């Protein structure tokens, strides 16, 4: 009988060793999965997880579902408020955990969204130092935006990436987007109001508006409205009037009138503001 027991013990011990190895391997797998896409299992999420893994004895499925639904609804409303106040729409945010220890937590975020018509994809690494007063730092900032008409933005983007100034990026993006929206709104409004004179060769989101004199096809006025962004993040709209008038027409008009048009426009701009100034020019062409 002793021998049989020894056999059984050996078999069991071997089985246990095997199981321990399996459990360790599963734990490693779980940790890797968690690092790959980090979920926050706390509160109602933890209850739900416990239920799904057959661990919950306290809650029924209905309870778990209804509590989660309630939280989801609250968060959806909260998200609407944040989106409205921050002026930025976020489509997705994925989290990877690179390192999780006692002294620091390092995570990598990939955030995508848009601000009015401008799409962005921003990646950065966030390090949280657990000992020092909740110090947080961003590094490895990488910003990707649609290339169209953002040449003025590129210098700023390079600077922002170099210095990891992610908050500056989003502040400036909002301001830049607002100024671009002002321009596109004004262009669209003027085209709708004076369709025979105003044309937008690049669309209402472009920088150029052309004014054609209905009776003088060769004479064109170009409005170049650019929104410049300095590498420091200062957003400056600039509107210039350029004339394209054939030589022989110029000869018919005193040079000051035409040549001074650009300067005159700048004064108008200062006094009336962009929309009114542009409208005055249009009215001057075709009263």
């Amino acid at each position, binding site marked *: 009988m002793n021998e049989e*027991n020894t056999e059984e013990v050996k078999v069991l011990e071997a089985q246990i060793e095997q199981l321990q190895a399996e*459990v360790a391997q599963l734990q490693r797998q*779980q940790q890797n999965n968690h690092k790959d896409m980090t979920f926050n299992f706390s509160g109602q999420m933890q209850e739900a997880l416990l239920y799904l893994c057959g661990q919950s004895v306290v809650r029924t499925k209905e309870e778990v579902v209804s509590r989660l639904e309630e*939280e989801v609804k609250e968060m959806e409303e909260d*998200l609407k408020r*944040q989106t409205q*106040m921050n002026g930025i729409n976020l*489509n997705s945010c994925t989290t990877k955990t690179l390192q999780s220890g006692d002294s620091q937590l390092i995570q990598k*975020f990939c955030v995508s969204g848009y601000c009015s018509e401008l799409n962005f994809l921003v990646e950065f690494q966030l390090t949280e130092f657990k000992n020092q007063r909740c110090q947080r730092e961003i590094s490895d900032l990488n910003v990707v935006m649609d290339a169209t008409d953002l040449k003025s933005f590129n210098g700023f983007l390079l600077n922002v990436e170099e210095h990891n100034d992610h908050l500056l990026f989003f*502040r400036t993006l909002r301001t830049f987007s607002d100024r671009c929206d002002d321009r596109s709104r004004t262009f669209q409004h003027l085209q709708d109001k004076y369709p025979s004179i105003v044309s937008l060769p690049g669309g209402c989101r472009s920088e150029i508006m052309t004014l054609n004199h209905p009776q003088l096809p060769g004479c064109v006025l170009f409005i170049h409205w650019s929104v410049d962004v300095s590498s420091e993040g200062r957003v400056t709209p600039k509107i210039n009037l350029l004339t394209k008038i054939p030589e022989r027409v110029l000869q018919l008009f005193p040079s000051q009138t035409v040549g001074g048009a650009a300067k005159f426009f700048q004064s108008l701009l200062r006094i009336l503001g962009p929309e009114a100034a542009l409208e005055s020019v249009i009215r001057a062409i075709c009263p």
Partner: protein
Amino acid sequence: MEGLSSKGVLSHLSVLAVQTKSRRNPPQQSTRVKELKAEAEALMMRREQLKAEIQTHKSLQRMRLSMDKGEEEMDEDSENSQLLQLMAKHSQLKDLLYAHHLIGGYDIIKTSLGKGVCVSVTTAYEGVYLDTYNLEIDLKPVLRITRHNVPPFIPLNELAEQNNIQTNIKAFLDVLSQHLNAHAGRKQQLKLVKERFPSVDVMESNVLCSILVLMFTVPRQKTAVLCTLNYSDHTRCLPTTVHIQCEGRTVSTDNQGPPSTVYNPRLCVMSMLSIRTLKHNKFKCPSFIY
């Protein structure tokens, strides 16, 4: 008779002894077996639990990925798919809200039954999160700031008036954020200068960090250079004018203009280099300036 019974007793005793011995040993072994069996069962349960957790995580991951792409979820037949979708949605919302916070959002919270709000303005410089400022704003009957921890040298009320806080809270907050971030940036730069270059003397600075006077000594020539940085635009963390004095001569540069002169404390060296002309090329720009 006695011999027989004593033999009987002896043999009886020895049978008893064997019985006792055999009774003692198997209990030891069966306890051990019981222990091992219990341990094995516990491990098996743990294994199954881990497998279930990993499976759940995988399903959630899959759902999150398609949710993030904006794809419509196909109705799966599994009995828990509704719960899993709910969990995926929950996690997505939580991440999005955290992202709003991380990118400098105002973290607006409703208070007093909707009659007020609480906002936070986050500041950061070069990736380092700095102070956060909070404001409590009453919305009714009239919009006004009730409590805040914005320092007094930031003209809060002026900014509120100038930016029509009554009609446009967002514009006001954007401007306030600009001021606070610029200040935080200047303050942080000063802190970094003190930390990294202890040989540089900070002769003067103010709470707003809008004026900074630094004194440093050129290593080899032992000449003292006085550098005054003026930040007259409080929405910027770069100086608008820089005066450099060395042995009675002054060089100053103006940075009122727009982008053409990219000014950066790092590029303060540019103005430092201009001192070369004063010292007939013998002056070597101190490596301190970044």
